[in-house]
């Protein structure tokens, strides 16, 4: 089913691209006056008629297969109701209708056998066909991966449209040029040689612009769809993109040879034939590129897929925190930078170019050899895997229990917060917890713990590391320095619909108050009096009883009235997670609007108002933290 879908999509895209290119090439070459060139013009129009039929046919096959996939029943592909449902009730179906409507109009238009001898008629006929073909091709973007990007849908779709149309002009133009060059290369087609030379030169200039647009839009598309190196190297979508880039290199090589060697010698004997062969090779490779692009549209975009890291190592900038590694990396980077300067120089100088080039390459290699090894750390297939669970108090609390039962026997508290652990990616910890370290006698827990339990342990390890580092955090905020992510938690007040700490992000600061009665009563009364002022300053107070109780609100009593949220369900998990950074019968933790812990008062309340004023005065808030540890 998937192969059929891919085949139909490839044929459909290729025919759309060839339609755009054929009419773009005709308009570039200009109205033909000589017989051979007129025959080429007629031949391309005849091809266009056939291509419209092929595009419509492959489009129908694509729709039928999509219907079967959509309904998850192969027989749905032959049920008119199911097909109509996909066409009318889904966005890709509506786009399909619009595109195929345009193709039908294009088919009718190119089927008209009217005289186009007059120049304006010829331009109108070819221009209209180009317009219709371009619209039909560009609309592919309306239901592509680019249209699913939000926010920033419009720039993404614009980039995708540019990519498609530039492909049409370049690849379609190449294929359209071949029959003209071959006809002109023959003795009986000699009358078209001047026309063919002009057409090839004009196309060469436009193809260069199209190629630059292709590269630019390709880079923006890749940034939007792939986002990271692990996604590029570790997902099917990313690897197809790498294959596309690998295929682009020989295409660019052939294009450069065409432009610099073959095209200037087109007037020489056999020059036309040689150009036709090279153009044919370039077009053949480009059609493979379209097949890879079609396959990419059928795979999950890399940024949404779980990457499987293919290498046994990765580079880690965290290693730069160690002085020896830092020095080696500095020396290596300077050598490599000198090598890059040498490479640029080699492009400019004429005398001794090979010598400069060789020296530059050697410098880059030595620089890499010196600077990179200290940054190399072990990596595993799950190194960049996104945790199954968010960084949540409930997960941390569950991790505490699992860790005590299964891990604490071998790993002491010092190991838990050691640098070698805190520098590991969460995905690497997941691999080590799941598979174990046999050479050190650590068993794998993939069959003893569920996946969720393993992520719980990793969330706990991260929280323990953060707690160790949080000793530097006190009752005074460090301006413009936010680093400690506040674990999310559920705010459940009685039977009301529960909220979450993260609901306050971007809206309010939160003062989490871990309290114990009766010791905290005085401070709670003080906070109750300050609540109005703090609320106006942008602070919500969330009180969490250390002695978790569903009757927590009633236990606080009626006087003074405490009106801020008091957690009555899930307090135990919150205390377990936040108690790691602020233990004791009473503690207060100030979380900024972005979701970072900025101040901690351990044992007693502090001058919250003054610290809130400082947070309100901060000019450049940090970005929102990721919900998952990494």
């Amino acid at each position, binding site marked *: 089913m998937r192969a059929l879908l891919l085949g139909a999509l490839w044929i459909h895209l290729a025919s759309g691209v060839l339609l755009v290119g054929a009419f773009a090439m005709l308009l570039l070459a200009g109205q033909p006056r000589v017989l051979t060139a007129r025959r080429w013009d007629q031949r391309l129009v005849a091809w266009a008629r056939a291509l419209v039929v092929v595009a419509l046919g492959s489009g129908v096959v694509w729709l039928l297969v999509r219907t079967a996939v959509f309904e998850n029943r192969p027989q749905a592909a032959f049920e008119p109701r199911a097909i109509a449902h996909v066409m009318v009730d889904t966005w890709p179906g509506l786009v399909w209708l619009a595109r195929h409507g345009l193709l039908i*109009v294009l088919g009718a*238009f190119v089927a*008209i056998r*009217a*005289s*186009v001898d*007059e120049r*304006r*008629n*010829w*331009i*109108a*006929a070819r*221009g*209209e066909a180009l*317009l219709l073909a371009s619209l039909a091709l560009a609309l592919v973007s309306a239901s592509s991966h680019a249209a699913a990007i939000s926010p920033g849908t419009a720039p993404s779709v614009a980039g995708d449209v540019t990519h498609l149309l530039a492909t049409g002009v370049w690849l379609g133009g190449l294929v359209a040029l071949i029959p003209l060059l071959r006809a002109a290369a023959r003795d009986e087609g000699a009358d078209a040689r001047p026309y063919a030379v002009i057409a090839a030169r004009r196309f060469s200039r436009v193809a260069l612009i199209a190629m630059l647009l292709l590269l630019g839009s390709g880079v923006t598309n890749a940034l939007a769809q792939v986002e990271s190196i692990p996604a590029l190297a570790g997902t099917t979508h990313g690897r197809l993109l790498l294959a596309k880039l690998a295929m682009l290199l020989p295409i660019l090589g052939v294009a450069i040879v065409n432009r610099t060697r073959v095209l200037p010698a087109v007037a020489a004997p056999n020059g036309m034939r040689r150009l036709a062969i090279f153009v044919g090779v370039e077009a053949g490779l480009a059609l493979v590129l379209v097949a890879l692009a079609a396959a990419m549209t059928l795979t999950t975009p890399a940024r949404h897929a779980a990457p499987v890291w293919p290498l046994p190592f990765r580079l880690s900038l965290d290693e730069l925190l160690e002085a020896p590694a830092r020095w080696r990396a500095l020396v290596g980077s300077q050598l490599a930078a000198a090598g890059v300067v040498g490479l640029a120089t080699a492009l400019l100088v004429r005398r001794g170019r090979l010598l400069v080039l060789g020296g530059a390459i050697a410098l880059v290699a030595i620089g890499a050899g010196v600077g990179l090894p200290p940054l190399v750390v072990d990596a595993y297939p799950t190194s960049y895997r996104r945790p199954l669970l968010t960084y949540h108090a409930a997960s941390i609390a569950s991790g505490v229990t699992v860790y005590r039962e299964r891990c604490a026997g071998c790993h002491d508290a010092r190991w838990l917060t050691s640098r070698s652990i805190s520098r590991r990616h969460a995905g690497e910890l997941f691999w080590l917890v799941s598979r174990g370290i046999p050479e050190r006698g650590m068993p794998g827990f993939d069959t003893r713990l569920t996946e969720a339990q393993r992520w719980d342990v990793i969330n706990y390890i991260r929280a323990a590391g953060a707690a160790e580092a949080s000793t530097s955090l006190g009752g005074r905020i460090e301006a413009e320095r936010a680093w400690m992510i506040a674990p999310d938690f559920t705010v459940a*007040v*009685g*039977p*009301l*619909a529960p909220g979450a700490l993260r609901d306050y992000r971007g809206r309010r600061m939160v003062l989490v108050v871990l309290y114990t009665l009766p010791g905290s009563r005085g401070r709670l009364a003080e906070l109750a009096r300050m609540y109005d002022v703090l609320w106006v300053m942008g602070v919500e107070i969330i009180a969490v009883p250390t002695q978790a109780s569903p*009757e*927590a*609100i*009633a*236990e*606080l*009593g*009626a006087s003074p*009235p*405490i*009106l801020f*949220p008091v957690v009555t369900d899930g307090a135990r998990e919150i205390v377990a997670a936040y108690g790691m950074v602020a233990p004791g019968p009473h503690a207060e933790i100030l979380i900024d609007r972005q979701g970072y812990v900025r101040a901690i008062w351990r044992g007693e309340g502090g001058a919250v108002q003054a610290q809130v004023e400082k947070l309100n005065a901060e000019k450049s808030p940090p970005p929102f933290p990721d919900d998952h540890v990494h």
Partner: protein
Amino acid sequence: MPVWQVALVLNLVFAIALGLGYAGWGRRAATLDRELDAARVQVERLERERQACAGGARAGKQQWGGRGVVRGVYPRLLIITHEEIRGLLPARTTSFRAASPALAESLHVGDPIRFSLRGTLADDVAVVAVERW
């Protein structure tokens, strides 16, 4: 008919069809959406007025239902942390006037309750009925 005229007519037809499509369907769809929202609000308001009327209120008053937790109790005032009260208030803590002091007698801080509000605006509503949630 010359081809250039055919192309011109074709493009004009496309442009006019797009324009008419937007004017006749796109704008109408947006208007219908707005009208539907207004009708929904009106129906909800009428339903609240019907409930208020059935409870003996005078014309023009509405009745809302809410769920919440009691945070403060005074003879003529109830402070309640409540969920969203559709058509009246978002989820928050609000002090409401009690229609009668008897309503507050059986309530304590921390009690989860269902309550009915009656009035014309958020500023003049009063709690007219309370039951245990």
